[in-house]
């Protein structure tokens, strides 16, 4: 698809042109190391997703399980453009984002296994990963429901006078929800530091973008809020890094929000339960796999002068990390029944609920009140 720029935008005008392909620049050792690390992150995500699918089919992971194989360049490119103080919010297809943000694979796999050492202690599962210590505020399951929340996090950053921005991931299907409209209007009206990353993988479940959106070029919708919008090839790590880096820094320093639409493709079905063939052909998938984002980075690394061995080692380390994640998850204990109600309310709410016991539904006393409600 063509990389067109939204016409509605001061920001685009001002912003410096996209960095030229790094190849023509002299490659610093540092640049090479960074790119290698990103390559390894992408491999880690791919390996992790493939392992998750195996574990799901082995019934050790339940619920909905949405994989992001094929979308790694967006994930790594966008998250690596974030600073430590920045905030990340995503939808339910969030394994890769969690890993890219540095959440240990063990904590992610343990969450998918529903174990106590999971990043949400087995309460959230695949769709609801988070790590507040790394500014990752979930992992949400209602399409577009994360947009108002992310917009509010950006408002929170402003109120706290932090020079930081929010990166909010959403899918191409989410841009038709009212929550998108209300969120972007607020973000632009209030000049909030937030970048809405539209991961356009061409389908929302079985519905192609053109069957769902009257304006299939989602980034153009930013203009309805006098907001900057642009589109990148989401399978080109350099392009994503450049665009996400630029838009996040504009958000941070000038408090100007933006929409970044990244084009990619989802290799697997919508979730592990979906074969993903009812609405697209095997050929289509094969064609896309032929331009695999990980292979493309590998090729760039070769150009940059990386040794084949370095790539192999990176691949091995990621495979290793995933294997360790699995054994960690296996060993992590299940949550205690006696803590079923812990975390439903803030600690210290016990007294508030004490007088609610009489006439409780059957079992409520033991299961909820005695199991830590408000504790």
């Amino acid at each position: 698809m063509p990389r067109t720029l939204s016409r509605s935008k001061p920001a685009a005008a001002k912003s410096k042109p996209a960095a030229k392909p790094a190849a023509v620049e002299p490659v610093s050792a540092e640049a090479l190391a960074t790119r290698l690390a990103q390559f390894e992150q992408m491999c880690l995500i791919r390996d992790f997703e493939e392992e998750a699918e195996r574990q799901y089919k082995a019934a050790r992971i339940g619920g909905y399980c949405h994989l992001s194989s094929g979308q790694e360049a967006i994930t790594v490119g966008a998250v690596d453009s974030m600073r430590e103080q920045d905030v990340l919010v995503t939808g339910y297809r969030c394994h890769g984002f969690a890993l890219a943000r540095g959440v240990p694979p063990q904590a992610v796999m343990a969450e998918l296994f529903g174990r106590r050492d999971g990043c949400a202690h087995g309460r959230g599962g695949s769709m609801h990963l988070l790590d507040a210590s790394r500014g990752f505020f979930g992992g949400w399951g209602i399409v577009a429901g994360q947009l108002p929340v992310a917009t509010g996090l950006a408002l929170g950053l402003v109120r706290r006078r932090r020079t930081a921005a929010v990166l909010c991931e959403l899918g191409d299907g989410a841009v038709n929800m009212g929550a998108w409209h209300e969120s972007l209007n607020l973000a632009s009206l209030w000049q909030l530091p937030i970048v809405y990353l539209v991961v356009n993988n061409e389908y929302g479940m079985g519905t192609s973008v053109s069957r769902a959106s009257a304006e299939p070029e989602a980034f153009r919708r930013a203009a309805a809020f006098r907001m900057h919008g642009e589109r990148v090839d989401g399978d080109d790590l350099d392009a994503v890094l450049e665009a996400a880096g630029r838009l996040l820094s504009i958000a941070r320093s000038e408090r100007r929000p933006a929409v970044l639409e990244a084009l990619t493709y989802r290799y697997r079905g919508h979730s592990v339960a979906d074969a993903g063939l009812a609405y697209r052909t095997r050929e289509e998938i094969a064609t896309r796999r032929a331009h695999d984002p990980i292979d493309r980075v590998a090729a760039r690394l070769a150009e940059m002068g990386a040794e084949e061995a370095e790539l192999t080692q990176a691949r091995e380390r990621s495979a290793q990390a995933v294997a360790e994640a699995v054994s960690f998850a296996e060993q992590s204990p299940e949550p205690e029944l006696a803590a079923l109600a812990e975390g439903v309310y803030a600690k210290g709410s016990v007294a508030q609920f004490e007088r609610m016991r009489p006439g409780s539904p059957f079992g409520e006393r033991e299961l909820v009140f005695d199991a830590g409600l408000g504790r």
Partner: protein
Amino acid sequence: MTYREALRLALREELTRDERVFLMGEEVGVFEGAYKVSAGLLAEFGPDRVRDTPISEEGFVGAGVGAAMLGERPVVEIMTLNFLLIAMDQVINHAAKVRAMFGGEVGCPIVIRTPNGAGNQLTAQHSQSFEGWFAGTPGLKVLAPANPADAKGLLKAAIRDDDPVLVVENLPIYKEKGEVPLDPDYLTPIGRAAVARPGRDVTLVSHSFATVRALEVAQRLSQSHGVEAEVVDLRSLRPLDVETVAQSVVKTNRAVCVEEGWPSYGVSAELAARIQSACFDDLDAPVERVGMAEVPLPYSKKLELAAMPGQERIEAAVLHTLGIA
């Protein structure tokens, strides 16, 4: 035939019978339904009758309301009940108000069908049962079939009804099998509960998946304790057939209300309130309630199983009500 197939048959029959009927929702066409209820219907009836929508619950539920005001018979599928929260204003403040607010001048014969329920570790945002909220809204009718025959009969009755009707289906029972009348004019009457299992010792009142569980428990109790529980399957939450429930309790003198949702301020609260009022002098024990533990449902299978109103918990509640154990 399965519950899913019964729903599909109902849709096919009504689409065939009445030009005004059309389906609308996310993935109902090309994808054949997130849970395959509408499989084959796009091929059979075409895109005008089986309409895929963007992810825009507020928009297309409202579109159903408008089309219904013009006399069409939209059948709107919401992928799961949880997502109906997004269209809440269109359902509660529009569909439910049309007829009365405009002095009876216009109707709104829309059907919204959607599965509720938990299980399968879908976690807090995807495991809820809000049907009581709709059942508490004058202007709406709310149905909840618990078996294939009623799935067909109630959905067809809903589509032929002149008022807005919410048909609450249930994920775990889509695959349940049962006898289904093939007569295309077979309807299950709205506002009539069914005695799903006769008994004399205690009345279990339930709807949707809870009825399936209640029947299993009644079976077990008959064998294990010689307790004969009568199971009243509500089928309809608004209108609510209190008459049938009361007749049963007058006979058994004890009642346990089972629901898959949270009991506090839930469906079982209304049942307990009605029963204590209608059968005050007949009750030998307080009306008991069993439902989902009152927490946002956790992902962990172990916690989820513990939180749900499973056979063990229902059985314990019944025995408790009977003063046994």
